């Protein structure tokens, strides 16, 4: 059985396309088997909704009558510094940026990080205006030196998210072996293995359903926080050579994606600022990736379940920050993580997650409806992402 993306798009056009989410397809494959399911199903949709720190927005601020050069000067939005080392009217605000006067982790207390770049982005998406303060040095062509005004998305020629690292293919389960609580990007970790925090949609997660990046590549159209988005490059720290299981999925952090999408069209429901006590500000993004069922192998990949996916348990009190000690305390499946407790060093440890499975389901469902209703066509990647080195011994996916 072979199927092409143009055949799938033809079926979307004619309204006969068959789409399931990566969660629904599990039962379909259980009942019908991989071969029959691959014949009948054209597309499987994935979804995730989670904090993704490496996110931010490029903005082109419309000039006033007297023009000003932001490039080489400085700019803040609601007090949050934006990067101004670009052309005259372009700035970039990163999700994790915080105001100069934020107390951070001073006075021996974990900071609250109540406001930052992610909050600015969320407020703009909600249609609110934010205070732009900017300064430049003045040139013959850009004489104005100071600017202070309330601006919204309507005052920008362009505003698009450009996220250099989103959608981690898999991630650590964070625990704390020490005797004091620690505050990390994986949340507050209670001492003595008090809790275990993880962050993945597991069986619904985009890159765990196309583990070898066979269909996802540069140019792949995606659902990005309610708008159309694109994969534009592999993400930073993309590591296709992470250890993998027999089913091809990595059992540690592996692939990542660089994503782009129009902020002006995003839905604030899917774009939410978060504050990690003691760590900082981040932005939760919704990413939905369609997976074309090109052949039986793709159907086998998307039928993966939480019980088939594993993540490493990592100590964030000593190993993660210093590299000293045991790198892994073990491996657990997402089915175990989702049961509410895992066993680490012989102790039952309650689990919590930062990636919302309820929202991941909604994202995959939204993308499924869009495709079925003819509002979203699939794209052929123009170039693949760097993949794992092939022919590793004992790995079943090599061809």
């Amino acid at each position, binding site marked *: 059985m072979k199927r092409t993306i143009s055949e799938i798009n033809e079926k979307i056009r004619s309204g006969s396309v068959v789409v399931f989410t990566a969660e629904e397809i599990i039962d379909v494959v259980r009942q019908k088997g991989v071969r029959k399911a691959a014949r009948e199903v054209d597309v499987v949709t994935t979804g995730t909704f*989670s904090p993704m720190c490496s996110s931010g927005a490029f903005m082109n601020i419309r000039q006033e009558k007297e023009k000003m050069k932001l490039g080489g000067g400085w700019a803040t939005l609601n007090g949050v510094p934006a990067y101004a080392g670009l052309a005259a009217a372009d700035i970039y605000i990163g999700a994790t940026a915080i105001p100069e006067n934020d107390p951070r982790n001073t006075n021996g207390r974990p900071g609250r990080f109540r406001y930052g770049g992610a909050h600015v982005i969320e407020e703009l998406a909600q249609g609110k205006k934010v205070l732009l303060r900017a300064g430049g040095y003045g040139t013959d062509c850009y004489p104005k030196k100071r600017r202070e005004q309330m601006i919204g998305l309507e005052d920008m020629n362009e505003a698009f998210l450009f996220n250099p690292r989103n959608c981690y293919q898999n991630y650590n389960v964070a625990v704390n072996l020490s005797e004091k609580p620690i505050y990390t990007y994986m949340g507050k970790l209670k001492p003595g293995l008090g*809790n275990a925090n993880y962050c993945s949609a597991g069986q619904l997660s985009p890159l765990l359903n196309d583990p070898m990046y066979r269909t996802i590549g540069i140019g792949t159209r995606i659902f990005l926080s309610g708008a159309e988005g694109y994969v534009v490059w592999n993400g930073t720290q993309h590591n296709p050579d992470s250890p993998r299981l027999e089913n091809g999925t990595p059992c540690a952090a592996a692939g990542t994606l660089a994503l782009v999408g129009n902020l002006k069209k995003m839905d604030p429901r899917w774009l939410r600022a*978060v504050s990690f006590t003691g760590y900082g500000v981040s932005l*939760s993004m919704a990413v939905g990736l369609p997976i074309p069922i090109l052949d039986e192998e793709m159907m086998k990949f998307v039928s993966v379940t939480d019980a088939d996916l594993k993540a490493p348990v990592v100590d964030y009190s000593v190993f993660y920050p210093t590299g000293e000690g045991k790198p892994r305390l073990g491996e657990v499946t997402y089915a175990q993580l989702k049961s509410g407790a895992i066993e680490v060093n012989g102790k039952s440890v309650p689990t*919590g997650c930062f990636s919302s*499975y309820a929202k991941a389901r909604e994202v995959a469902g939204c993308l499924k409806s869009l495709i079925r209703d003819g509002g979203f066509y699939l794209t052929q990647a123009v170039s693949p992402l760097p993949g794992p080195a092939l022919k590793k011994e004992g790995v079943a996916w090599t061809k």
Partner: protein
Amino acid sequence: MDKIKVVLSFPPSRVEDPIIFHLITDCGLMVNILRASIDPGKVGRMVVELTGDGDQLSRGADYLEANGVEIEPLTEEIQHDEERCVSCTACVPACPTGALHVDRETWVVFHEPDRCVVCLSCVDVCPYRAVTANFQ
């Protein structure tokens, strides 16, 4: 026997008086202090579980009111903003009583005020700031 959880607010003029002592000895109530914040010269606040029969509870309420202590139901102390909450479950292992819990079919997070003891463990761990406390 009835059991109720309430928040008591003591006016600054009464924080140094042995009000809980009288609640136990004069009104016959069992008092379980779940959380307290008492400083001289400031409004003092206390989360308590009161156990007694109907008569003892109403005597206790009368005694507290007569002494200027305000009684509020506990349910208003922790607010779970369902719009702001995305059901990520970060709060679930932090909650010692299971007041914040997740339905493992729908994966939606719920807050049951009856089980909450206002320990505030959830407030710091919610990255969406969807759980807030009046009692600080």
